[in-house]
């Protein structure tokens, strides 16, 4: 009995770290890019968005896992959407009531958590197939992985774009210390590269990040490691996904009428015709 308990605990921890590191939703799976770009203007916003998403992800994973034998397969996606949307609404109301500053900073991106690839991706690929406890840890790991990534991107953008970190003028403090050491009467002032907090900066930071990831992937391939993504909803990453991201979550993937795989085939065919 204690053996099975131990095993369960071990696999839960494994699932947890899988989401946090090995299959980090932002850096490795490149899921949920819209909020990643939009709310990471400062570290605190990234942290808030990450924790909000984590809360929704954990709750929806648990509920979907509890209901996995009850929800009929054919209507599972709408059912998941309703569950996720309910939790998003609850979290939104709680934020509005208790952390109004974060609520106004994140704005429209809180309700848009509903269409975040990560949540439905995890519901579809993990919670609907696994028992409650692993699903809980999967949600927690994935959510915290997302939080870490958003906070890191937010910190970089805030540091370069405003010279601050979590609202504290770090760079200017350091520069003031340096100038007092070298004996300058006027401290050197940091001129913020404000484009990094604006929209274009988000694209540049993400471009640098993806390039880095490509490089790591290539090195791993050269060493002969398998870099295929494992058991995630959008099996390849969103950004290189030719069927416009995670749309296939919402339609039946297995060749049902109107499914994306069919649409893609049709698109390929029509392209082919035009080329002929």
């Amino acid at each position, binding site marked *: 009995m204690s053996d099975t308990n131990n095993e369960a605990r071990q696999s839960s921890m494994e699932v947890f770290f899988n989401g946090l590191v090995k299959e980090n939703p932002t850096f490795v799976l490149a899921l949920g890019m819209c909020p990643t770009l939009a709310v990471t203007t400062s570290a605190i916003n990234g942290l808030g968005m990450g924790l909000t998403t984590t809360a929704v992800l954990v709750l929806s994973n648990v509920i979907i896992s509890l209901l996995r034998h009850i929800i009929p397969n054919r209507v599972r996606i709408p059912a998941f959407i309703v569950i996720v949307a309910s939790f*998003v*609404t609850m979290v939104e*109301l709680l934020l509005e009531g208790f952390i109004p500053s974060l609520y106004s900073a994140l704005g429209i991106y809180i309700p848009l958590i509903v*269409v975040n690839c990560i949540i439905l991706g995890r519901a579809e690929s993990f919670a609907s197939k696994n028992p409650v406890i692993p699903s809980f840890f999967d949600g927690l790991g994935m959510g915290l992985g997302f939080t870490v990534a958003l906070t890191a991107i937010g910190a970089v953008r805030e540091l370069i774009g405003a010279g601050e970190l979590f609202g504290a003028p770090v760079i200017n403090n350091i520069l003031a210390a340096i100038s007092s050491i070298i004996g300058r009467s006027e401290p050197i002032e940091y001129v913020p590269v404000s484009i990094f907090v604006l929209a274009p*900066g988000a694209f540049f930071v993400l471009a640098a990040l993806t390039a880095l990831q*490509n490089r790591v992937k290539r090195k791993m391939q050269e060493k002969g490691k398998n870099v295929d993504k494992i058991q995630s909803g959008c099996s390849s990453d969103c950004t290189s996904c030719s069927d*416009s991201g995670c749309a296939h979550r919402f339609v039946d993937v297995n060749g049902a009428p109107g499914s994306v795989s069919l*649409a893609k085939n049709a698109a390929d065919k029509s392209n082919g015709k035009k080329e002929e």
Partner: protein
Amino acid sequence: MLDVVKDLLILLVGSSLVSNVVLSQFLGLCPFLGVSKKVDTAAGMGGAVIFVITIASAVAAVIYKFILVRFDITYLQTIVFILVIAALVQFVEMFLKKFVPALYQALGVYLPLITTNCAVLGIALTNVQKNYGIGFSIASGLFTAVGFMIAIVILAGIREKMEYNDIPESFQGMPIVLITAGLMAIAFCGFSGLL
């Protein structure tokens, strides 16, 4: 009358150029990056997005005004909008297939891809947030979607040219497209002087 025209013009410039849906609000990034390899597919996608967003913002505005506000359940807006949009896209697809096959030929392939694109839900929610009436909601949806089309067609044009360029290995694929999008975003920042 003149005031309405003026407001509409400001809305047109504001939502299609100044706060462009992809380049400054980051909504609908997935199709923007995914379907922008060729100009004609990008134009098709843009057309489908205009079609769906305009209808969806009209339906969402009507439902909001006559059901949610009336019964005082506006806090359910996220759930209601997402379900309505998902159902609506399926319905539009079936309708076009049956009654307007020519339009279906042109847009049909792209329709399932936008089922629940975050731009569609995002615009429906923004309209509610800004307290637009039904007419202005439709106009705002249309203009925002036009902004999406402008952005995706320009990006596709640049990407077609980029095929012949020698790009550093790590930057091939998505990174260079993101940098292009970033440069486009800088250019679109310039439009903010228009208002």
